[in-house]
């Protein structure tokens, strides 16, 4: 089916996100307004205005009641989805790279970047749900960049909210206890699959079925699937351009990777050569299945519909493309999967 092209942002997209039901799509870009859209038809529900610069990240709580954004203007903002009212603003010591609600919606995580003399921190705020416009200014947990390691670029919550998993600038992933910020485990996820010199982690997203594993994307042109519990690398997906984002699909065993040539090199190459495609890999076989063209700049962010019906991608070109999967997508099976299916239905 033809994708819906959302042209509400004036600058490159930084993150797109579905709510739990998948009916709403939240997007932020380098302009200073976040947008909320109906995912079914691409109509804009409204914008969240208040930031004074780049907005790097957005998240929505499980009830689609609250929404949080963090941006380059050193602000973390809490919004009411219903009417777009800004409820509260935290000040951050440095630009905010990532915000994420805990799975139960009671806590908010934010990454303050390691710039402007700031050491680089992941902070957790306990939300005051009774009086939303009166929040604790002090975070309950502060995780500082380890002196021997490097800063966190992205982070997310494990399914039960017990762990915070961060993707670091040096290609490592780190697991922290979300209650006290204690470092529990680290593993090198990137910079070991090839000889790329830059391997910072650019995105982290959890398995839609139960969050027991997650995918990381990196500038080293790879994405890896890692188990939350053991921190073991389960799968590696190799692409031929730096990857900015990766997502795991539900229903089908696929992963979607997005990226492309660095934004600063884009003007010097033709569109066909820039690798600005969403790449589908089989999650289990690590084989590339197909690509979806459309953007004319690198893909910065991809989000999969929670019910696996489609996905949305946001690009450096400033557009969001909302795709709905066709029947052929759901019918596609590898030989081994067909055999398994046949065996399960008793035909063999």
């Amino acid at each position: 089916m033809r994708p819906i092209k959302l042209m509400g942002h004036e600058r490159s997209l930084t993150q797109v996100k579905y709510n739990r039901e998948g009916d709403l799509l939240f997007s932020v870009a380098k302009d200073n307004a976040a947008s909320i859209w109906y995912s079914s038809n691409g109509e804009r529900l409204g914008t969240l205005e208040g930031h004074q610069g780049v907005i790097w990240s957005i998240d929505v709580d499980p009830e689609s009641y609250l929404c949080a954004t963090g941006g380059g203007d050193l602000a973390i903002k809490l919004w009411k989805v219903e009417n777009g009212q800004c409820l509260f603003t935290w000040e951050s010591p440095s630009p905010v790279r990532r915000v994420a609600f805990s799975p139960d919606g009671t806590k908010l995580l934010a990454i303050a970047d390691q710039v402007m003399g700031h050491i680089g921190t992941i902070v957790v705020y306990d939300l005051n749900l009774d009086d939303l416009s009166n929040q604790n200014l002090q975070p309950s947990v502060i995780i500082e960049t380890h002196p021997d390691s490097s800063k966190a670029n992205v982070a997310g919550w494990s399914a039960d909210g017990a762990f915070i998993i961060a993707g670091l600038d040096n290609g490592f992933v780190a697991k922290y206890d979300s209650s006290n910020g204690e470092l529990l485990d680290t593993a090198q996820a990137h910079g070991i699959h090839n000889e790329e010199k830059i391997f910072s982690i650019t995105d982290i997203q959890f398995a839609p079925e139960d969050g027991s594993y997650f995918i990381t994307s990196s500038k080293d042109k790879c994405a890896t699937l890692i188990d939350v519990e053991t921190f073991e690398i389960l799968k590696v997906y190799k692409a031929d351009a730096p990857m900015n984002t990766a997502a795991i699909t539900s229903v089908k065993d696929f992963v979607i990777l997005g990226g492309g040539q660095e934004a600063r090199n884009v003007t010097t190459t033709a569109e066909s050569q820039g690798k600005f495609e969403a790449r589908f890999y089989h999650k289990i076989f690590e084989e590339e299945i197909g690509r979806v063209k459309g953007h004319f700049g690198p893909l910065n962010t991809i989000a999969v519909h929670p019910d696996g019906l489609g996905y949305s991608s946001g690009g450096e070109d400033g557009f969001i493309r909302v795709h709905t999967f066709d029947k052929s997508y759901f019918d596609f099976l590898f030989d081994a999967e067909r055999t398994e299916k046949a065996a399960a239905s008793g035909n063999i």
Partner: protein
Amino acid sequence: MSLTEQEYADLEKEVNVDDIDFSDLEEKYTVDVGLDNYVVVDGAPIAPESKVPVLIKVLKKIFSEVGEIVEGDDGIHMPLEGGKSKGYLFVQFKTNEMAERAIKELNGKKLDLKHRLLVNRLSDIEKFGVDGNVADEFQEPELPPFESHGYLKSWLQDEQGRDQFGLHFAETFGVYWNKKKLDPEPVIEPRKAFTSKYAKFSPKGTYLFSIHPQGVQSWGGSDFSSIHKYVHNQVRLVDFSPNEKYMVTLSPVPITLPEGTGDRSSFPFGPESEGHKLVIWDLATGEPARTFALPPHLEGQKEMPWPLVKWSHDDKYCARQGPGALAIYETPSFQLLDGKLVRIDEIVDFEWAPAGVHLTNSKVEGGEHVLSYWTPESTNQTARVALMQIPSRQVLRTVNLFQVSDCKMHWQSEGKLLCVKVDRHTKSGKTIFTNLEFFKLSEKDIPVEKLELKEIVVNFAWEPKSERFITISRLDDGNLNSAIPKNTVSFYAPETTGKGKTATTSFKVFHTFTNKHSNTVFWSPKGRYVVVATISRSNGEIDFIDCSFDDDKSSKKSPANIKLLKTERYSGMTNLEWDPSGRFVAGWSSSWLSNIENGYRLYEFSGVQLRDELVDQFKEFIWRARPASLLNGADKKKVRANLREYSAQFEEVDAMEADARVREAILARRRALEEWRSYRAKFAGKVRKSNNVQAETIEEIKEEIFEEKEEIVE
């Protein structure tokens, strides 16, 4: 081990110092006598005592230019005997470096017609001048034990006759067997940091070379073990003689001798090579055969013409071009042919015939050595292309040309023909067109056929071992828009008209493809098949062409029957290369030239794509060259007659292997699926902690417009 003071004192009592053998330490810390700043100058004029102060003054002036001489009488000491100087003197410099410099710069300096100064280090004179220090009798140097590197041509014995190629990606280099559609099979474990620049096979494929800051390293044998190191600091460019006897290397850094005498003995170059940048090596021994300084007009140039040394077809001669002259050297002595240069005023370029030339009046077996060169127009001289026979230096044929912009010499692979592509300009100098001058060397008096074209020929290529050729030409109409395809690919073949004695052959166009972007021609090394490609940043295209289509079936032989077999698009392509057997074509996109879709593709000669691999930071694809076939004509004919039987046999092997691969892939996927299911099964028991979101389900009403009509009501 550390001792306390007390323990040491005890130890000292026990051990008698005189018993300890200090000879090793003494040897290690021998005191330098400090004579290094003295030089001995011989060859000075013998002067009467009265004139000695004047002579000293003169010499002092000369030596002061290279360094400070110690003040006073100690500075220069000229011994006298019988009221005359003895013709030698001692000079004491302030530092060793100054003495070193004096030796370097003033040794051999002509004082006047009769006197030449010989400057040596005093310590050297002591070392070598004293009897007994240098053995009087020649002592045979000890031969190093023979080291086997295995059979260097083992790869040619492959049962399936496969070719090898090298893949260079990121920092890794590996040599692989070509397995057509399947993953190439590594011959050796791909090595990281194998080379600091690029790798290269020798012209017949025997050796593999890697480039390092310290020099060149050769590898060979079935396991590519190390064979020789050719020490040449910061070496950049490498070239080989056609028969793999010699290697030429060039480094931007001039050779400097190491300071210590110990290092010097292991250094491959002698003092005569000081400051040289170009080295010719004997590949078999690993020793330098000759070194050269760069000609002055090339010093400091950024783009170096390469190769700087061109070889005759049998490695017997090599030649370098200097301003207004050719230097031709004989191997293996590497001395100038007849001891003098070949003066050719304003020579621009020269080429050796790639094979022995069979001239009509010569009976030399294997053919003559011939080279061609050209000189441009000057005020009262026309441009000239000439053929010269070596070693006689006899000019066999000259052609005068007018209004010449540029010339390119293309030898046919057997040396039968030379085509000179002459780019000429109109009188106004605005547009350029091309003439092709064909020197027919195997005919009497070397007739020259001229082909005048209206267009400019941008590319010319002879078919190997044939008299057919292809040109890519374009009309020089001043329109510079590169988006308009206006290149014409023309196929020429000789056509004989008339019969018997009056028969003449001339080159005729048999086929053209017009309005193309194509800019490069690659003939199969075995002839007949050719790929004409477009290599450019924006679009790439490869045309696979058979130039003798239907020849096998039809009885009537046409000199050229052109058939376009297939056209393939390859947008990122930067390079293209045939395998040495003429069965495959590899195209690749190198990260040295472009940063998109780096990787390689492998095609059959007919254009069927076998592989398309994207490899991160892919740099180069190198086919391993092969020596000429040992089969004679009759053997080849026999193989061709039984081709069906051979091919059936090979196809079976291919099919079996392909089947095995497919099965393996499916099994691997099944395993992966099983593993994944068992991994997921661990989580099946654990009920997902539902967050029990307190949300009420609201029925969603979706409005969908099925049809929209717009009616204009008047």
